[in-house]
């Protein structure tokens, strides 16, 4: 790979942060300096009191044409990683090299001043993002048109709605011509129509062949936009692979680890799908859920629930349970529940979640394992449910023709 090619190279990257209050006034400084004279300042590579590693030993690279998705729970270090890539922060150890002009779709309206007009803010924010004057002037009309707020461009930004603010900010960022593209949680700006437009635009920018890094909690966006992904947990890369693999690991990890509300004693130990491959829309998937009911004095009469959650919205699109099927669990001992689901759903990522349910108290008593299912392909359709439609063209009956004539 030639040195001049744009790209991102992160090698054994560590970043240390200080937890709790630092001395932030001169009054605190003098005792701190005195302590430092007596003791010794902690080295960059070791942890002092109250320090913690925000990123530990992170390694990855992104080449042109690749898009890396970074997922993980809050506080995993995703934003820290992006700040290291944009040079806002410096590594405590390791290397973080970004070659090429960075375009960062991060905090896209951070530089807006409320008293300035939209027009004035376009120039200000453009400059903050590193655009030259000629570039801003040349793309000004495009930016305003894309934002869809041309009528308000000479109105002070303080009179904008938050949606208008975000739209203008995104439009400026969308007209950068970066050699490296970094995106952090800007996939959800404005109303639905603008979100779709913004996502198409990001797709276009990513499609130009520049290296892309995306941080988002919208997992389906990661799945469609990225060529590979990393899953961060407590500053560490716990998984590095395809977006689907990482998303699956993320969803399983968070769901399985969630504490069960209430104590039932029922344990759901394993959920095995028939296969890991993506399923076509309308196809059937089989899963087996294993669990045990403990020996106990009185049965709570719990049922086992299965629900399907769309990962892009986080909403449960389907739920059923043993109660609905008249299946009663054994009084005690191990059981295996075979579930067959027909994935009549549009393309996307779904999680099949399992849980124990107390029908009397109406609450979840145990959380079981979950599995990610990717629905891909099948007959194309638009909408939220696959209705297995059949369309055919028929020649009209001869008598019908005759009666109309």
């Amino acid at each position, binding site marked *: 790979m030639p040195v001049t090619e744009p790209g991102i190279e992160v090698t054994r990257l560590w970043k240390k942060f200080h937890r709790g209050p630092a001395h932030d006034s001169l009054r605190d400084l003098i005792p701190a300096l005195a302590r430092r004279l007596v003791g010794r300042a902690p080295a960059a590579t070791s942890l002092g009191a109250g320090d913690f590693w925000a990123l530990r030993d992170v390694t990855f690279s992104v080449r042109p044409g690749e898009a890396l998705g970074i997922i993980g729970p809050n506080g995993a270090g995703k934003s820290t990683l992006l700040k290291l890539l*944009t040079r806002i922060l410096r590594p405590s150890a390791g290397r973080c090299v970004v070659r090429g002009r960075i375009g960062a779709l991060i905090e896209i309206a951070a530089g807006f001043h409320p008293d300035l007009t939209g027009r004035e803010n376009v*120039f200000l924010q453009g400059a903050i993002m590193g655009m030259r004057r000629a570039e801003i002037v040349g793309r000004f009309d495009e930016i305003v048109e894309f934002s869809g707020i041309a009528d308000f461009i000479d109105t002070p930004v303080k009179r904008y709605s938050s949606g208008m603010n975000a739209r203008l900010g995104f439009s400026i960022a969308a007209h950068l011509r970066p050699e490296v593209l970094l995106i952090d949680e800007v996939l959800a700006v404005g109303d639905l129509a603008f979100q779709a437009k913004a996502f198409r635009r990001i797709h276009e920018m990513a499609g130009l062949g520049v290296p892309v890094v995306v941080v988002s909690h919208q997992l389906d966006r990661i799945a469609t936009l990225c060529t590979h992904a990393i899953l961060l947990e407590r500053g560490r890369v716990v998984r590095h692979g395809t977006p689907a693999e990482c998303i699956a690991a993320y969803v399983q990890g968070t769901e399985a680890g969630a504490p069960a509300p209430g104590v039932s004693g029922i344990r759901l130990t394993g959920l095995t799908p028939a296969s890991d491959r993506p399923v076509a829309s309308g196809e059937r998937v089989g899963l087996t859920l294993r669990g045990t009911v403990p020996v106990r004095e009185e049965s709570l009469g719990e049922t086992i629930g299965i629900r399907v959650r769309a990962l892009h919205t986080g909403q449960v699109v389907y739920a059923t349970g043993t109660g609905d099927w008249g299946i009663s669990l054994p009084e005690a001992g191990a059981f295996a529940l075979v579930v067959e689901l027909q994935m009549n759903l549009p393309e996307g990522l779904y999680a099949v979640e399992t849980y124990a349910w107390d029908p009397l108290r109406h609450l979840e008593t145990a959380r079981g394992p979950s599995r990610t299912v990717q629905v891909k392909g099948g007959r194309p359709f638009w909408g939220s449910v696959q209705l297995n439609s059949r369309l055919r063209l028929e020649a009209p009956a001869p008598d019908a023709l005759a009666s109309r004539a």
Partner: protein
Amino acid sequence: MSQPVPAPAVDAAETPAAAEPPGPSTLREVARDLWDYRELLYQLTLRDIRIRYKQAIMGFAWAVFMPMFVIGAGVLVRYAMAQFAGRTLAADAVAGIAVKALPWAFFVGAIGFATTSLVGNANLVSKVYFPREVLPLSAVLAQAFDSAIGTLALLVLLSLLGVDLGLTALWAPLLAGMLLAFTAGAALFLGAANLFFRDVKYIVQVLLTFGIFVTPVFFEPAMFGPSGAQLMMLNPLAPILEGLRLAVVAGHDLLAPLQAVGRGGLEVVAWSPWYLLYAGAWALLGLFGSAALFHRLEFVFAEYV
């Protein structure tokens, strides 16, 4: 392609392999960064100027009124002093105060805005990359714009007071440059200091309020006698302000020393060419020193802001 990375059992037991030495912190790097981001420096300066005059009753007149207040206060003080000594206040003395009040107002305004420029833009500092020098520097430049308007008003005032600008007035641009450099250096230093220690801005406020008593704006150092005058001229701003007064109002060539008659008829050194060198050294070393320090520290700004 997928490979789950094995997580070590004990996190605390491991440490990173090797720390990368901090990057080079040369002034050339600062200059290149600033050149790359000159558009941002311009836009931020424009922003500061615009928001100062938007929705303000006084508008651009503010740029003239602020130094006017300083001049008025100075004239009042000197008038009282003259009355006490049984003399009248000469037009030259008023002109001298006017010439020194404008740069003083510039310094006070610029330092006031620059000290809070980094903390006041915390959202930018913590979220967007750009050379952070542009924030305090744009505060200084916005104030310089104000002072440029004030200078026009000052020229009118000087002609009303009957001051003829001679060739020696050509020293003024050099002295203004020194003032700008010194102010920029102080702005960088104080802006960064206030980011780490939030009480710096209070200290700066106090220093700026009382600074007028130890800076020769309303008075001349010669009034303090031989040793007092020299002590007064140790203030880096003093040679710049006195130089402006002597060159613009008194028509004195700054390359020549000047003796004045001070208290009790004593001879006092009112000006020495060495003062020029002294102030210039403060301005340049202060600017370069602050810029180097600022550049070394700016990579941790986002963690502290």
